[in-house]
């Protein structure tokens, strides 16, 4: 696989760092998650394929275990507030002096510097600080963060993986690792770069008001509509030729419409008209009616519905896990060296403590000593 042979030490965290670890694991890396001792449950829901070793990081000997692991690893991912790793004696100065080829990824909300560094926050705060949140939400409603997708996962975990991969790529030329400072605030902004760069495009941003523009629920032809059976359809008919097909499918003509497609003054009225029409048929009827026409009208599936949809099934977009539920298959698809195609199980905390220590050269006596003194824990 693309990352076979790459060793990753992931210091256990909430969701963004686990996402980065999971992506690397999915593409073949050997990911070891360092869990805290004295806990039985992990919050990591993105743990497939990882191995777990439980270490008492607060003890000097525990820190030494992590040092030894990282000195023989390629990547370390840490999720703490700036300064915490340093206080544990595991800062980049120390670990990279020991292992200059180490890629040391630091995943935080506000970054390793700046007045907000170290302030507690969550996705919604990072998204707010990035400027992006101010653009999301309907007219006259409060801005709405899309759960925690944009800062935690897109601008956080995924961008962290991107940074790690770039650093690994650079290392093939230079032999040297480096620090990757991943700020979820910046990541969210960067992923949304187009928002800043497109502000003077009249077609996309006809008003300065949130929820009254082309892609932010202002336009009737770029919106969602409820069907007769309480489900929804997605409409993305921006281009005139697609819009014409949309009208056709809805049984409307240009004459029925209160105005031409891009008359923004008539958008609210057009939206009501479309709403009324969509409410007259069920989701299945609309799917059948629009078929695979280029009207850009498609169903809004539920999480379960997406996994079993005929298109997604043909693509193997979802994998089934041992509990019988579905999870997305790694993307993108690489033809020669794809990611995993089936779900490896989540580790239990401390399940691989002994195995990992052995792999890193600890003798049986050393391991017994660590276990006996609660420096590490095994399952």
């Amino acid at each position: 696989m693309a990352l076979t042979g790459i060793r990753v030490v992931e210091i256990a965290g909430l969701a963004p760092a686990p996402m980065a670890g999971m992506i690397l694991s999915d593409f073949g890396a050997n990911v070891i998650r360092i869990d805290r001792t004295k806990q039985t449950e992990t919050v990591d829901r993105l743990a497939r394929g990882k191995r777990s070793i439980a270490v008492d990081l607060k003890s000097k000997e525990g820190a030494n275990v992590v040092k030894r692991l990282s000195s023989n690893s390629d990547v370390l991912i840490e999720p703490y507030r700036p300064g915490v790793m340093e206080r544990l004696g595991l800062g980049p100065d120390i670990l990279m002096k020991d292992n200059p080829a180490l890629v040391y990824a630091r995943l935080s909300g506000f970054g390793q510097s700046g007045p907000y560094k170290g302030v507690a926050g969550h996705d919604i705060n990072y998204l707010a600080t990035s400027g992006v949140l101010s653009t999301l939400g309907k007219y006259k409603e409060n801005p709405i963060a899309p759960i925690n997708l944009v800062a935690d996962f897109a601008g956080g975990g995924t961008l962290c993986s991107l940074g790690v991969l770039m650093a690994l790529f650079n290392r093939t030329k230079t032999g040297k690792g480096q620090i990757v400072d991943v700020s979820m605030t910046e990541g969210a902004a960067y992923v949304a770069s187009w928002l800043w760069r497109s502000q003077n495009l009249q077609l996309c941003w006809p008003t300065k008001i949130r929820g009254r523009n082309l892609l932010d629920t202002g336009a009737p032809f770029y919106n969602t509509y409820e069907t007769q059976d309480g489900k929804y359809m997605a409409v993305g008919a921006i281009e005139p030729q697609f819009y014409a097909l949309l009208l056709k499918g809805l049984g409307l003509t240009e004459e029925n419409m209160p105005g031409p497609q891009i008359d923004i003054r008539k958008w609210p009225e057009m939206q009501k008209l479309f709403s009324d029409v969509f409410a007259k048929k069920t989701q299945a009827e609309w799917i059948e009616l629009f078929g695979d026409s280029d009207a850009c009208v498609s169903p809004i599936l539920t999480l379960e519905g997406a996994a079993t949809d005929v298109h997604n099934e043909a693509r193997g977009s979802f994998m089934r896990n041992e509990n019988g539920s579905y999870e997305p298959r790694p993307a993108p698809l690489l033809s020669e060296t794809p990611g995993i195609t089936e779900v490896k199980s989540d580790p239990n905390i401390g399940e691989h403590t002994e195995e990992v220590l052995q792999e890193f050269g600890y003798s049986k006596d050393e391991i017994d000593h660590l276990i006996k003194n609660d420096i590490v824990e095994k399952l």
Partner: protein
Amino acid sequence: MILSGVKVIEFAGLAPGPFAGMVLADYGADVIVIERTQSAMPRPPSLARGKRSIMLNLKDKEGIKVANRLCQNADVLIEPFRPGVMEKFGLGPDELLKNNPKLIYARMTGFGQSGSYSKMAGHDINYLGMTGLLSKLGREGGKPTAPLNLMADFAGGGLMCAMGVILALLERTKSGRGQVIDASMVDGASYIGSWIYQTKDAPYLWPIGDELGKNLLDTGSPFYDTYQTKDNKFMAVGAIEPQFYQQLINGLGLTDEDVPGQVDLDKWPETKKIFADVFRSKTQSEWCKVFDGVDACVTPVLTLEGAAQHSHNQTRKTFLTNEDGDAEPRPAPLLLRTPGVNYVKPNPVTGQHTEVVLKEVGYSQSEIDELIKNEVVKSETVKSML
């Protein structure tokens, strides 16, 4: 820079492909955009910083020959067309990889290269609808609301495509070979949202999972949402953990007696109303004074311009200033030893680099003149625009 020496041929498209190309350009790749001479849609100028532009007539056999030659010397190709279009041009992966086995051929589409929807037109909202994620986004009593085109076009699209390219480049250092990347925005957006699928049955996250906007992180809870201030701006509240929630209550000037318990789900609407009333009593900057530096997870909702001016972001140089004086995000993440660009390179004029790019792959001036004369290529130097 990280991608110095990496040559990317990007076939011009709308947003996802260009964003992937921009990420690569931002980290040092030489990205050449092939724009079509007879293009119905004008190229949106928004994601072209630092790229070079050549105009080709892909409907002309000679134009295909030029494209072929460019791809022979390339490391990466990004194409945004519906499945089969590149094959029709004679520029499909089988063809190009035969002549250049180290080529990384990235195919950026909404629905992917296969499956029943693969030939269908669509946009971000359609792709996001297919993932299941859109069904979870929106306020109570409303309908699913797509977050602009961030999740499918950019996060699950361009970003994922760029990540696939870097993975393939890394793999190529071992194998010496390229491969085909099937970057589907449906797949990409789903993958980024993996955690949502994994946690959908967790009762603390999705207590009323079937309904929009009634859960922990989807605007259902009073301590994970935005609130309007006295001056019609907004504050973002993300006080999930009990110790942060306590700081939130304190900062709002409330006590435990004033509000229902944090996890009293039935009273969430009531608590929300109480919070909303309090937030409306002060301006955004007054709230910032109350909460800055406090671990309450309460922060201002900044506008696009405001974010660029905020002291934290200024310290971090999160934004660069372009030649128009406007702010745009600096490449993330920060790689300390080999960072991305720290200034905004200009957008190319369409066709600005036609001649220089052709010379680079060995065309003589007379060959170039011939191609221009026959409208196989078009050259638009800055001078000719004056």
